[in-house]
């Protein structure tokens, strides 16, 4: 049996079932929600090392819509399911203070369905549809608290997100007008035959703006620091941890690397956007006093690393020459490794922020202090997360940053490598600030009787904290060949993707 459609069917089905059947029973939505995400985790491990196609309704491409599973999608599926499982586990007790858990889980699973769809689809318009499913669910979830700030952030996010979607749709329409096809592989084939033209260039600009907005690259980042902190903590973890990666970075890489093909100019755009995001996000995070806002700016900064690595990889691919392929592979390995690392440690940090808010009812760092003694597990998890993002040696963040910097040096970008190191120092600075004000020092006023968060919240944070340390092992040759290398190869094969899908 083909398991590929299950990744979309399971969350969609549960999203429908939860509000249908669990109105009366209080514990049922929690159970069904966790069951759905847990089954996705198990299924996603089953996809490791597999590739395949699923033709919807039996129609073969280029006529029908197909779902494609390759190394890169498989990596995304594992990332999405892992983080969403941790988030649903966290929600069980955290979401008690909100009114409607039914709708919460329903929207949550819709978002997961959309993201899985984006990761799997091989059709451009289908990509847009799944992108909108995930986006609409996330707009609603950002405004879930229905308070002044949440609604304001949600509106801002909705307006910018809709503009992004419209740009993407416009790009898709242009591509369709040019090639007469929507299947990604088939479009790639046509583009290779027709070569570069003004229409394609215009479509590329549209895609860059659209996906850049979704991925919150710096000129387009304005919505992120409002939207991510305003959402409930598990949703912040999902948004920062996986949503911006799947809807932004993954979709961008799929279209630019596998369909259109990268060239030097495009790589320069990626490198430029990456460096600017890295620096601006890092500097702005330094000045924040709101726990979650600091994390949101840090997300922008860390996504900069990923985009930079992608740009360096694309540059090496476009330039060609001796050893270019190994440099490109190294850069993309670093980028993708940082992508999943960021998913674990940023969702961990957002969950700890939720735990802190649950205990103290404030997000202001100035009002906190000494929480490490009151909430030891949360404190420990936050420390693991901070050190991982800052890139200290035993944790996963160190290895991925090291690889990215090494790739920059190998590709000859010494200045950029230096900037990357400097931003890493800035990262360490603002996470030390977070640690100092929130978890160490004098116990803040009115925080004398703060207690540790309930067990399930600690459990989900614990899982992610262990993953933060454990993911370093992915770099060992064995696990790396299973998980990371197929993903890198899927990107590296570039427009050969076409032959894999169409089989000709």
């Amino acid at each position: 049996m083909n398991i590929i459609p299950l990744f979309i069917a399971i969350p969609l089905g549960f999203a429908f079932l939860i509000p249908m059947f669990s109105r009366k029973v209080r514990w049922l939505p929690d159970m069904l929600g966790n069951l759905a995400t847990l089954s996705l985790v198990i299924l996603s491990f089953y996809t490791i090392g597999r590739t395949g196609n699923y033709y919807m309704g039996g129609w073969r491409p280029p006529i029908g819509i197909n779902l494609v599973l390759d190394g890169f999608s498989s990596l995304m599926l594992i990332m999405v399911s892992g983080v969403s499982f941790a988030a649903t586990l966290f929600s069980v007790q955290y979401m008690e203070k909100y009114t409607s858990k039914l709708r919460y889980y329903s929207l949550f699973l819709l978002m997961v369905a959309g993201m899985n769809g984006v990761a799997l689809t091989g059709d451009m318009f289908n990509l847009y549809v799944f992108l909108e499913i995930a986006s609409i669910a996330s707009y609603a979830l950002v405004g879930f608290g229905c308070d002044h700030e949440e609604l304001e952030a949600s509106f801002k996010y909705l307006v910018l997100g809709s503009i992004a979607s419209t740009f993407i749709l416009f790009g898709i329409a242009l591509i369709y007008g040019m090639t007469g096809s929507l299947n990604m592989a088939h479009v790639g084939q046509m583009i290779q035959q027709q070569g570069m033209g003004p229409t394609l260039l215009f479509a590329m600009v549209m895609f860059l703006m659209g996906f850049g907005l979704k991925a919150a690259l710096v000129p387009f980042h304005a919505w992120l620091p409002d939207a991510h902190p305003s959402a409930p903590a598990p949703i912040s973890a999902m948004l920062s941890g996986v949503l911006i990666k799947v809807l932004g970075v993954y979709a961008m890489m799929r279209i630019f690397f596998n369909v259109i093909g990268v060239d030097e100019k495009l790589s320069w755009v990626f490198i430029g956007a990456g460096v600017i995001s890295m620096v601006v996000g890092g500097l702005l995070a330094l000045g924040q006093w709101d726990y979650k806002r600091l994390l949101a700016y840090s997300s922008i900064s860390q996504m900069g690393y990923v985009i930079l690595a992608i740009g360096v990889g694309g540059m090496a691919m476009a330039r060609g020459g001796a050893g270019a392929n190994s440099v490109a592979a190294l850069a993309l390995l670093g980028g993708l490794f940082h992508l999943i690392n960021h998913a674990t440690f940023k969702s961990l940090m957002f969950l700890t922020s939720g735990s802190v808010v649950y205990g103290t009812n404030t997000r202001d760092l100035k009002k906190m202090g000494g929480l490490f003694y009151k909430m030891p597990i949360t404190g420990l998890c936050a420390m693991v997360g901070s050190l991982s993002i800052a890139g200290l040696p035993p944790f996963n963040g160190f290895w991925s940053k090291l690889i990215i910097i090494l790739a920059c040096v190998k590709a000859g970008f010494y200045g950029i490598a230096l900037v990357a190191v400097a931003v890493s120092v800035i990262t360490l600075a603002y996470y030390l600030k977070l640690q100092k004000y929130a978890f160490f020092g004098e116990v803040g006023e009115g925080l004398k009787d703060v207690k540790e968060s309930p067990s399930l919240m600690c459990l989900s944070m614990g899982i992610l904290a262990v993953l933060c340390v454990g993911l370093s092992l992915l770099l060992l040759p064995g696990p790396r060949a299973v998980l990371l290398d197929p993903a890198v190869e899927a990107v590296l094969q570039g427009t050969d993707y076409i032959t894999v899908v169409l089989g000709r």
Partner: protein
Amino acid sequence: MIYLLTFVLFSIGLYGVVTKKNTVKIVISLVIMEYAVNLFLVLLGYRKGGIAPIMEKGQEIQEFAAATVDPLPQALVLTAIVIGLGVLALMVSLCIRLYEKYGTFDISEMKRLKG
């Protein structure tokens, strides 16, 4: 030429989103943008004097293909309109909620968030 007009419409929408202060006007501008793209999609498949893409009995397939308009963009636009409706409903309900909270539609007065 006519493609240019959809692009003008698109730009008008974008201009409205960027400059207007009233939330309802922003929503309307977004809808204009969306419809510009929908129009563009329909135009892509349009053919002067084309027939509806329904094949009648006894019609030659070549003849049919030469006369009909492209049905795929129409299917896409249907989907895009439904998605747009979902977004529009969410936007309008957010506007109503914002009005309840702040008592105004003016976004320059909603600034609890900054930084």
